[in-house]
């Protein structure tokens, strides 16, 4: 059985500046993983390459056994960015419809309704999300990322801008995602979140410096720059 996410010698550099050194990684299906590191450690670069949004400088990334960015990999993957992007002429509800249908979901409305209600966005469904505040935009992005089916979810800094209620709802949703059998890889600076996952990865200056159970790690020292 292929891993949910695997990388082989995956690397990225911007000119003469390496952002990620060659990385070999395997995340089995259903695993719940946190990715930590200081600012500029390569977390977002790794996630964006796995999502197919960044070109690799070397090596390869695979999602559910398929090369990142290919059609089957995109079917299996949901990407929740730290900088949500929306169409400026579609309401939140129209976003949900569009994205669910693009992923071949016919009965999306109930799921969308439930997500909006849990994220307290029910009364904003007909509003344009580009006009939302930072926190509401993040909630809208969460709903959009979860309205469609997926096997693997890559999440970049999901807690930024969320109020406590939003954080709690997100944690619940992520727990449900994990309980449903999907694989989660969450890049975060919220060290409290780290103890909810099965595996912890830490990057420092583009290199993997820790891969193991969160209980065995001194998380605070792992997020310090070299």
């Amino acid at each position, binding site marked *: 059985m292929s891993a949910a996410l695997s990388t082989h010698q995956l690397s990225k550099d911007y000119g003469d500046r390496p952002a990620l050194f060659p990385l070999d990684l395997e995340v089995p299906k259903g695993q719940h993983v946190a990715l930590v590191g200081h600012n500029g450690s390569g977390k977002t670069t790794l996630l964006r390459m796995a*999502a*197919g949004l960044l*070109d690799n400088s070397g090596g390869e990334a695979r999602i559910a056994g398929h090369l990142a*960015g290919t059609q089957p990999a995109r079917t*299996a993957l949901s990407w929740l960015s730290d900088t949500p992007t929306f169409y400026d002429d579609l309401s939140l509800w129209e976003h949900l419809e569009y994205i669910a249908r693009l992923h*071949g979901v016919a009965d999306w409305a109930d799921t969308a309704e439930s997500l909006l209600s849990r994220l307290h966005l029910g009364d904003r469904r007909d509003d344009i999300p580009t006009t939302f505040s930072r926190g509401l935009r993040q909630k809208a992005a969460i709903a959009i990322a979860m309205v469609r089916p997926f*096997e693997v979810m890559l999440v970049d800094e999901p807690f930024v801008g969320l109020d406590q209620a939003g954080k709690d709802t997100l944690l619940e949703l992520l727990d*449900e995602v994990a309980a449903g059998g999907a694989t989660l890889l969450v890049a975060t600076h919220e060290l409290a979140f780290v103890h909810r996952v099965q595996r912890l990865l830490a990057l420092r200056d583009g290199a993997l410096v820790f891969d193991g159970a969160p209980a065995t790690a001194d998380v605070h020292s792992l997020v310090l720059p070299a």
Partner: protein
Amino acid sequence: MTEVAPAAAPESAYSALRHLRRTRQLHRLGNIEWFEAAYRVYLLAIFGGGSVLWISTSVKDGIAAPDTIADVAAHAPTVLGLVVCFALLSGLRGGAQGGPIALEAADVVHVMLSPVDRRRALLRPASQRVRGAMFSSATAGAIAGQLAGRRLPGSLLAWAAGGALFGATAALVWAGSALLAHTLRLPRWVATTAGITALAWQGVAVATDIPGPADRFGSLGLWGWRQHPADLVGVGLSLAAVVAGFLLLRRISLEALARRSALVAQLRFAVTMQDLRTVVLLRRQLNQEQARRHPWLRLRPARSHGFNSTVWRRGWHGLLRFPGTRVVRLAALAATIGVLHGATVRGTTPAMLGSALLCFVLGLEVMEPLSQEVDQPDYNDSYPVERGELMVRHLVAPLVALVPLSLVAAVAAVLTLGGSTRAIAPAAIMALPTLWGGVSGSIVSIVRDAPDPFSSTKQQAFIPPEMAGFSTALRLLLPLVISTLATCTVLLPRAALRNGDSLVGAALRGAVGSLLVIGAVCYWVKVRDRVRVKIRQFMDEGRSQTSAQRQQRSQA
């Protein structure tokens, strides 16, 4: 919501894509201010039509002399081939840098990451891009064709059609090469080398009798006069390149699409606002032109910590990080300005307008330290110095940086004038002052963009609509007019040459004229804020006096 994904149902996804695109198109159509759109079309028709008529009047009617016609028949295909090679170079470089397609940022994330076939999803934006390029290029070709048709055998209609065919083919070359360079992921240096090789080869073909790689393409430009079926090979090749690019659309880089999406949206907005400075800046970002990590030279630690020295050093810190491509571009701009000045002296008066425009662009490039200061109002408002004093000091380093470029311009001007030794002294005298004067327009454009702490938006909102169009046109044209004023001094040596007067004397007078323009602009930069404050105070006093008088009258 969290179940393991079933296989996506592609057809329903495509129908969603079609449906949403249609819906969004309707939204956009609904949002169009039709009156404003009609007004823009009207303006375009007036100015565009007027420009074509003006250019047309500059071309004499009547068939050219037989030897001129023979000359055109022999050399025009090779010269027009240069245009095609330039399109090829531009396309290859653009493609290697992520062009030519630009999607909305949301489309990059939501559509490109969905399981729809990327080729199918990208086919529409890609074909729109190709169509748009073909239309504008064919229009330009048709205008040029009908101008050529006034002097050469063949009907005007045939020449316009031939010009349009040539223009459309050049656009296909550009689009095809860009699509292939992108989808084949050509490294930038390979794309640049291939493009420059083709351009250089064609350049050699123009200068000698060897055949150039784009002669067949260039020959299409003469189809208004005579048709060679073999020329259609060029059309076929360029079409094949576009089709191959379309077939390879699945290989497009999302990283490039994401980078371009934000920049292209800003670029379109800047073009709409006629903000030339932002257009130049965004073009640089689109080409991924970044400051060098290591400067060309490292400045020694500062000995003086005074105001002048601090701003001077900041200027050079920025200038010494210009990337190589920008330095080459500056040199090329300076050389072209020199050539155009030479051409003006030789009698081609419109070349002076071209040189003014290029001086303006050169100024936008070289005045980077000033631009950076203007773009950081939070910083410069916090400095304990008057803004005008700060900005005028920011001019010094860029103006000094123009000295080597003036040498390039002088050499180019002398060569354009046939390398005559008589041209050396006037060129040496005028090169630097005309460059300094020429960049004055860009200084005005940059400084004027600085946020004005003394004006209120209320005041601007009271501009009557009848004046809005005029003030926009003035805003766009004023810097160019200033650059033209400073560069038109090259007409003095031309007049001296015609009248048999002293060339050096005329050059000295011209240099003084250009220096007066740059001097006036520098002074304006220095006192602009002070003058505005005084005007504002004057107006406020007037208003308070008027209201006091009214009060007195009403009480009486």
